């Protein structure tokens, strides 16, 4: 069972990451990269690294992406 979840998550990470980098619109790419982060959280939990998972959830998925979005907003304003 765990193996299946693991496999599914791996495939999900790769697919989401691929879609994210081929996305022409930057906001979409950022949201998708949050998806990659979430899948990575699952992976970290499955690999029994809860500390890393918590960090990834909070920094990688949460505040990191939000800072990207804010930077994007800045760029938009200066144009």
């Amino acid at each position, binding site marked *: 069972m765990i193996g299946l979840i693991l496999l599914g998550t791996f495939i999900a990470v790769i697919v989401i990451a691929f879609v994210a980098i081929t996305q022409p619109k930057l906001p979409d790419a950022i949201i998708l990269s949050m998806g990659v982060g979430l899948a990575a959280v699952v992976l970290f939990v499955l690999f029994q690294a809860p500390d890393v998972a918590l960090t990834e959830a909070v920094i990688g998925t949460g*505040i990191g992406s939000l800072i990207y979005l804010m930077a994007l907003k800045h760029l938009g304003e200066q144009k």
Partner: protein
Amino acid sequence: MNIKRDISTTTLSSFTLSAFFVLTVLSILLQNIPQKLFSAGDSLLKLNSDQGVANAVTTVVVYFRGFDTLGEIAVLFIASFGIGLMLTSQTHGDKNKVKSNFMLQLGARLLFPIIILFGVYVMTFGHLSVGGGFQGGVIIASAVLLMFVSSNHFHLSHRVVEVLETFAGISYVMIGLIGLIVVDSFLGNFLPHNISQLGLLLSGGIVPIIYIIIGIKVGSEMSLIVQNMLQRSDND
């Protein structure tokens, strides 16, 4: 798609070159995966019980590699400082702000104390369970961010953040220096850390204290970054 027309020769050749390098590196790496994976982690874990800290990861981060952590705090400090320096002089403020809807405001206000509480919990129980100062600090910063997003009137008092940040930074280095004087090692554990207290809130000597300090520092730095990027530093 006509490759020759759409992609310039330079791009194509540099891509080929880099792909070649990546393949070479990968082939070397895959051939040479060591049979027995070494790890300093095991030997570090063996030493963990000396410190009386339930979460071994915390011991490694805060105590064994505490000097690196101090360096990372410094990196965060300079980064936040640099963002403040680069962004604050631009003066475009609250124009074309959309008033956020009532539900968002209410929800954010309800969630704010809960998120802060969770952040404080993660921070203070870093030596007992999953998490710690870095994560807790960022959780607190994300609560602040939520308030910024939902309300147009929310703003952090610059003075309070500054006091917190300064206090945390100074006390981290001071604890290190006290360790140098008392137990003859920078960042040494000079408070009682007995294995019999394992699992209690007050255990592990300086480890939980430093992790809380890290949490305060990270929380205030990240909140400052958020505030600077949202251009609402209080000018009064």
